[in-house]
């Protein structure tokens, strides 16, 4: 019998959020397909879990935003397939988790919601309506040992280094080459929910390397129609092809002409990035 999911929970057993992570993990472990990973032992002796990790996808349960479990996975360069944060889920339910461990309706509701989130396989998404451009031409400049690429046309950028490219009233959003190089190996893409409506400069999920988490700050306003599901298995596409294969979110635009007022076109972003890189590194 092969286990196909490894669950790495938060280990904050002295606090409420950690205790809920534990309860979720134990609940999940009832299934024969789930192997539990003890964070302490993993940290101490990774080889103990080598087999389970090779056979299954990794689900990480963080208790709070300190994200110890995620950070541990990042430090060990384990690819995270799915991930959930107990405190964030509690927040969406308007439930305040204190420090003290509690067994009551609120905490039970949070456990159920976290379980539902882990179990919901990626929401069904419609066929992509986005028409991909034929070939993207790039300009580049170098700084030290780095070379930064920016498309020559058809992309728009905010000053938070996120891009949008438009086809009709559909668009794709991603991060620039600069972000990708700054983060280095991207291990996890946390996409927004399909159907979410968002404003310009709202968060549109995040991407994460062992170095840092980068929040995607949306260059446009609209509705999420699809997420790039090929990144689940190959988040490194964001590194390899940040403007094409590594797109993150497909959206239906609300008012692009209004959004454009606060976006750079390609030549302007090229200049902006040159200045930024020069300023940071001297």
């Amino acid at each position: 019998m092969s286990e196909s999911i490894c669950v790495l929970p938060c280990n904050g057993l002295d606090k409420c959020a950690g205790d809920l992570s534990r309860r979720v993990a134990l609940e999940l472990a009832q299934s024969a397909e789930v192997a539990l990973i003890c964070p302490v032992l993993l940290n101490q002796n990774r080889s103990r879990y080598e087999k389970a990790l090779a056979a299954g996808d990794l689900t990480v349960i963080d208790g709070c935003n300190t994200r110890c479990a995620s950070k541990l996975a990042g430090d060990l360069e384990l690819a995270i397939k799915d991930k959930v944060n107990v405190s964030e889920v509690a927040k969406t339910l308007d439930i305040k988790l204190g420090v003290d461990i509690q067994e009551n309706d609120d905490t039970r509701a949070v456990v159920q919601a976290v379980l539902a989130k882990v179990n919901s396989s990626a929401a069904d998404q419609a066929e992509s309506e986005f028409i991909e451009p034929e070939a993207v031409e790039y300009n580049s400049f170098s700084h030290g040992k780095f070379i930064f690429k920016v498309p020559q046309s058809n992309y728009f950028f905010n000053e938070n280094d996120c891009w949008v490219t438009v086809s009709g009233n559909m668009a794709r959003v991603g991060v620039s080459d600069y972000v990708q190089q700054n983060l280095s190996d991207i291990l996890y893409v946390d996409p927004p929910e399909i159907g979410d409506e968002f404003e310009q400069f709202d968060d549109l999920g995040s991407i994460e390397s062992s170095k840092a988490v980068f929040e995607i700050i949306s260059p446009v306003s609209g509705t999420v129609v699809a997420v790039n599901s090929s990144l689940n298995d190959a988040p490194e596409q964001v590194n390899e092809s940040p403007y094409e294969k590594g797109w993150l979110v497909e959206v239906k635009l609300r008012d692009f002409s209004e959004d454009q007022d606060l976006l750079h076109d390609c030549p302007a972003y090229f200049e902006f990035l040159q200045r930024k890189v020069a300023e940071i590194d001297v």
Partner: protein
Amino acid sequence: MSESTFMGVERDRIDWSPRIDFSKCNDCMDCVKFCPHQVFEVDENAKPKLKVKNPNNCVVFCRACAKTCGPDAITFPDKTETTKMIKAIRKAEKAAEKEAEANE
């Protein structure tokens, strides 16, 4: 740094930086470690130890450090209001430019 801008608007005209609720902050300094832009300063002898020393170094619309804050002590100004304000400044400046051109 003083001449930094956001979409052509001088940075010091845009009010965007983290606000710390010191009744929640537990001095963990995760936000300080996280932010690469020298927005925060730590003074071990002061209370509170944490200070938003260079608010204008904060990247407009970034909210990343708030996510690292376990006790949820960091908030930001209203994004929609800030967007409106930036657009208004840009509009006014464009109009002023046009007028200057017309008067030449």
